[in-house]
């Protein structure tokens, strides 16, 4: 008895009653420091884009423009407006249908891997997982050659068509999600005489809508930001440029006017950051969900 009492009274066993809550100052300090590291460059973009030409080209960087805010940078951006709009149109034209189709294809593949029994399922899934380990960039040159054999080079097809078949990363994520849908539900639907296709269209898709939306948005953000593919296949054809190529080219016309450069940068970056801030709940939940399966 005495021994047990001693254990109970020992410091370790007592619940944290005695502890006074003290805010973890060090944690705050470090996390604010890290946040500043991320936010300061963004602030620099924003403030520089609103500088006048004179303030932007001062050797001492000004955290707040000496001569007040100015729209000089954005006025130059407007000069290129038709080109930027053309780029935006191309980006949406290439990537919006691709994103939508590929998310549907991914969902269908994920459903097959998660809920259907068929021969070769594990082999195919394992193979696809393995391909994630092989970086696609090593076939860069050969892909370029392949596209020239198909006579697809200097068109947008090389950046559209491969995307239509979906991607294993998204399939993996959606598969985990669909596996969470109860089998009983699908069994009941089968007893009611529903075919697999009907189950997929009327049950699985509506039920996994949050995951599908997250993946579609993430996929589109990635495509919108993509640069190497468009650069390799479209750089010779100005009319086919995506918005990223347009912004890069335009900003290069103003190498020494940092306010104009940053105005282009802001036009390219901040709409997406705003979009992200609006739906960040969805996105962050989606990402942590995909990891939760591994942890």
């Amino acid at each position, binding site marked *: 008895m005495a021994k047990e009492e001693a254990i109970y009274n020992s410091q370790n066993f007592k619940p944290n009653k005695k502890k006074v809550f003290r805010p*973890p100052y060090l944690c705050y300090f470090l996390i604010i420091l890290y946040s500043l590291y991320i936010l300061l*460059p963004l602030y620099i973009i924003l403030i520089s884009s609103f500088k006048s030409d004179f303030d932007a080209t001062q*050797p001492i960087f000004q955290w707040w423009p000496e001569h007040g805010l100015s729209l000089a940078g954005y006025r130059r951006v407007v000069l290129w407006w038709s080109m930027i709009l053309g780029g935006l149109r191309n980006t949406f034209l290439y990537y919006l249908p691709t994103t939508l189709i590929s998310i549907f294809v991914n969902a*269908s593949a994920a459903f097959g891997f998660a809920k259907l029994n068929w021969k*070769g399922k594990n082999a195919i899934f394992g193979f696809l997982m393995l391909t994630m380990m092989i970086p696609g960039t090593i076939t860069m040159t050969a892909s370029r050659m392949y596209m*020239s054999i198909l006579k697809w*080079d200097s068109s947008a097809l090389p950046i559209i068509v491969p995307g239509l078949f979906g991607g294993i990363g998204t399939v993996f994520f959606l598969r985990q999600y669909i596996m969470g849908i109860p089998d009983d539900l699908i069994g009941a639907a089968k007893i009611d005489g529903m075919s697999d296709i009907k189950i997929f269209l009327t049950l699985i898709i509506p039920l996994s809508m949050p995951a599908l939306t997250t993946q579609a948005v993430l996929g589109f953000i990635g495509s919108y930001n993509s640069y190497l593919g468009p650069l390799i296949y479209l750089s010779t054809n100005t009319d086919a440029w995506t918005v990223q190529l347009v912004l890069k080219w335009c900003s290069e016309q103003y190498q020494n006017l940092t306010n104009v450069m940053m105005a282009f*940068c802001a036009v390219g970056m901040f709409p997406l950051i705003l979009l992200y801030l609006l739906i960040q709940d969805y996105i962050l939940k989606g990402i942590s969900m995909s*990891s939760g399966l591994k942890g």
Partner: protein
Amino acid sequence: MNDIATNENVANPHENMQHLDIFENTNLFKKERATRSKREKVVKETIEGWLFSMWPFVGYCLFALVPFALSVYLSFCDLHVWNIRNAVWVGFDNFVYLLFSSKSQFWWSLLQTLYYFLSLPLGLFLGLGSAVLLTSRIRLKKLFRTILYIPNVCSSIGVTMMWKLVFHRDYGIVNSIITAMGGSPVSWFTTPEVFMPLVIFTTTWGAGAGSILFQAALEQVNGSLIEAAEIDGANKREVFFNVTLPAISPTTFYVLTMNTIGALQAMGTIQLFSQAGSTSGYGPMFTSGPFEGKYAGMTTVYYVYMMSIGGGTEGSGKSSAAAWMLAIFILAVTRINFYMSDKWVSYDN
């Protein structure tokens, strides 16, 4: 009427005839038919499963495996235009050139790739560190979480422009701090010694994606394990290193593997930074010292790119050969990664 039924009827005249009639046209008591229909069902299910799931596989075969095979062929050819008919078979010449020629930058590029790997522990440290901070008892967690992920929705073009201004030779903030402290301004994008550190530094800006994954893992660590350790008298640090860290090791492994693959094919930033320094697209060149004639920031993937698509004189044959040797290198790294993972990744939570 089939024979068995008839025989049975004869043997047992009082057997209920009606039952036999009912089951006659069903599959229930006929083994042969039952298996056939089961087989049909399996075939049907398999066809359906393939129709549902084969598209990513088909896409991979068409747009990755075919180029893969093509690159094997190309690596034995000499070719400088985007027309396969002009390919000239040269045997192992490309490999010999890359491995032994003094003009080849292959070994140098592998070295640069390894150099770039420094961003891995940095990213891991930042991701895990911020995740630990964000799972501690602080307020505004959601706000910080949101901030950490922002870099991952920014385009590489925009991010490069941003760093171009921050590290601008004449108007950049870093150089104005250096000059304010009495130093002389550094030309960040054209000085070979600082080029790679710059690339690595800017890569860490996007380490927040790992942080989100680590947070999810940390939240899932079994609380009773930590309690048990605390009862046994472990202090906070011991709990972290002996309980928490092993418990999240699968996530660490996942992030590490993905980041390794990412680092091996990172070239968007390098390409854009190199172009910021010179229009040719080659990074800054060492003009003296032991690395004379080598380009800073020339990782192997970027070398592969520059030899063919980037406009280099080596052509797509040598480029493909280098890509294949890189593939072997990647295979080795991944193999080491998995081998090591046996020692430190634990899957029992």
